[in-house]
């Protein structure tokens, strides 16, 4: 999977982000299917078979079906997008993703009118994922977006990082990246995409709705009940590196309009 054209500055906002090392990005992951430790995914995710891979796309679409990864990538422009990833645990890093806009795939399968949400599901393979033997969450991991969020040009499906194939611990072979939301929204190793009218089940919200909302937009003013979201530890920045968290993780200019009129302290 080669590196395609580089995204223009408008879509790399906020600009001037310096990416973390490949080492940081691939050794500090939350992927609970492989264990809850930050190093567990790097240690155990190699067990996941990522080729061949297919994604079932169903629900309110014109062309439902099981799409092989090759069909999904066909005709897509793989771009580099340097995004800050802000974890709900109040740390962040900067990642140079390679991927394509989710809307290109949604256009390919034809979203029917009436569809309002997109639901995503991660692979569930007990033989390859040692973490799922513990019910940390109600597996399989599921996430979702409102259709307008999914169609937003900042929302991508990533297939690589640093111009290399996506490492398994980062959600190979295909993962979502939604840079203005907390990292857990950016679901990994996607096997199902469903277009639907109702707001989908989402793993963290449905495990604990007081702590995790459906929207989960990065918002320094709305604390997680157990910790503040006002600032974040900068991974790879050495000891005592901390920055103030930006509203929408710095992507407010592009996405704030999606939420105009909504009370974001209610719709957290």
């Amino acid at each position, binding site marked *: 999977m080669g590196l395609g054209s580089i995204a223009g500055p408008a879509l790399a906002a906020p600009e001037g982000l310096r990416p973390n090392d490949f080492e940081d990005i691939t050794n500090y992951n939350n992927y609970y299917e492989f264990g809850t430790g930050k190093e567990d995914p790097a240690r155990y995710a190699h067990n996941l078979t990522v080729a061949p891979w297919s994604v079932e796309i169903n629900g309110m679409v014109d062309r439902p079906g099981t799409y092989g990864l090759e069909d999904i990538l066909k005709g897509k422009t793989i771009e580099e997008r340097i995004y800050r990833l802000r974890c709900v645990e109040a740390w962040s890093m900067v990642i140079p993703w390679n991927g394509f806009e989710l809307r290109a795939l949604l256009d390919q399968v034809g979203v029917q009118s009436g569809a309002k949400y997109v639901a995503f599901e991660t692979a569930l393979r007990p033989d390859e994922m040692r973490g799922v033997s513990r019910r940390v969450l109600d597996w399989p991991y599921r996430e979702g977006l409102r259709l307008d969020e999914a169609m937003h040009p900042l929302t991508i499906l990533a297939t690589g990082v640093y111009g290399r194939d996506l490492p398994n611990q980062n959600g190979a072979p295909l993962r979502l990246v939604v840079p203005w939301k907390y990292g857990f929204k950016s679901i990994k190793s996607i096997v199902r995409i469903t277009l639907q009218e109702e707001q989908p089940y989402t793993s963290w919200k449905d495990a604990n709705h007081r702590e995790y909302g459906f929207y989960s937009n990065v918002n320094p003013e709305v604390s997680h009940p157990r910790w503040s979201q006002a600032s974040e530890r900068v991974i790879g920045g050495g000891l*005592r590196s901390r920055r103030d968290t930006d509203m929408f993780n710095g992507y407010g200019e592009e996405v704030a309009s999606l939420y105009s009129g909504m009370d974001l302290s209610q719709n957290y």
Partner: protein
Amino acid sequence: MSSVLALPKPVQRRLADPVNRVLRRVPAWPLYILGALPPAWLYWAALNDRLGVDPVREMEHQLGLWGLWLIIATLVVTPLRQITGISLLKYRRALGLLTFFYILCHLAVWAYYDVQTWSRVWADIVKRPYITIGMAGLLLMLPLALTSNTASIRKLGKSWRKLHKLVYAVAILGALHFVILVKGFQIEPLLYMAAILILLALRLPWATRR
């Protein structure tokens, strides 16, 4: 007092006597030096980029876990003696003081390297239940640490023993701090809590006989 789980006296004697004989020759003071090494190593490793991607979190986590292990070790002393006859009593003060030291380091790393601003440290202590609980545990350890010396034991007499029962509350608060800070349903902190509750249950009247 002995435990309902106590081994028969002859077994205790055969098991414990040789161990106790060896222990009689092992002083407690090296524990203070050995105990100071891991935090010093952690700090050195953090400064020299050897603690992985997120050194601050690693320091915090390791110090907290060590603190839990140490308080568990402190709580093991009495039931171990009651059940097997092996006496680690003379090491208990060192274990308790090391617990305090580790948790103090844990707080310092959190405040200075993680949160960094005093206003935020204070806000977290007041607003975040798991931090409030952790802080309460540390504060309860303060009088215990201050009276962990022979002079205080003499001076306080019976009330010293009463005062030092606070360690039970400290242990529960410490485990609770861990249980409620993790995301999702995780087993590890529950195991620490279970270990502590079992060690406390062994001290209840039903478990001991005079």
